[in-house]
């Protein structure tokens, strides 16, 4: 029992930053990221015996964090819909409104640009969003991302390409709106 606790403590110490930062990229909010981090480490503790060394422990933890973050957003979206009497939102990924944006890793001078970027990222599909975050923000290699997402390297390349294209289009729209307002 003690050895399990010791092992878990060392896993937590090594990976707490990874889990917390990745969940922050998904939810861009301190409270929600802490909630996800707790859920991730609870699952890590409960599944520690089941973990097979087919993949590295960090890949396994990345995978759990991605799934927990996506589940958390889905749960929040469904709660939000419930409170507006079941009215379905136009965008499934819109839970992260600008008002809840509270990413501690972003400096004040970059905050406006980052808000716009994350707003565009939140409108991507789940897979595109995961591939983009892991590649461009976490700076992982395509084989690493493929291993985390349980897919092929070519699929990852395609997801990143489509994510970039979609972001480009969204930002073009943003720019047009921004120019019209001016």
């Amino acid at each position, binding site marked *: 029992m003690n050895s399990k606790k010791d092992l878990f403590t060392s896993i937590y110490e090594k990976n707490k930053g990874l889990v917390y930062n990745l969940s922050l990229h998904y939810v861009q909010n301190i409270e929600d990221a802490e909630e996800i981090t707790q859920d991730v480490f609870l699952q890590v503790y409960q599944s520690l015996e089941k973990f097979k060394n087919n993949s590295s422990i960090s890949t396994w933890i990345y995978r759990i964090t991605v799934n927990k973050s996506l589940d958390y957003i889905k749960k929040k979206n469904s709660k939000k819909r419930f409170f507006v009497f079941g009215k379905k939102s136009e965008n499934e990924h819109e839970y992260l409104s600008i008002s809840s944006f509270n990413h501690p890793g972003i400096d004040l001078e970059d905050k406006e640009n980052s808000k716009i970027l994350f707003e565009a990222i939140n409108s991507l599909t789940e897979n595109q969003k995961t591939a983009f975050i892991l590649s461009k923000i976490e700076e992982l290699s395509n084989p690493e991302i493929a291993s985390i997402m349980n897919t092929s390297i070519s699929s990852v390349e395609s997801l990143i390409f489509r994510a970039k294209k979609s972001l*480009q289009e969204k930002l073009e729209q943003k720019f047009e709106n921004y120019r019209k307002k001016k």
Partner: protein
Amino acid sequence: MKKDDFIKSILESSNSIKKVEPNIALWNKIETKIYEAENTISNINFWQIAASIVLLISVNAYFLFNQNSIDNKNTAQQLVKITNNQLYSYE
């Protein structure tokens, strides 16, 4: 500002995101969650136990009532037999 510059500046803002450390108190929250998870019966277990008890009571009740009706049936049949096997007629 030109469109391309605008898009470039937004996309490049992802490079400036710094890694942050979680709050120290988070470890205590995780320990509490683990303790709670280890010391409470999960929802699934609770409903499994409840369903097992209901099933056990239903099966018992079924056999109990069924046994009563079989007993009644047997008694009635025996009575008929006794009536049919009267040795003397009083008419």
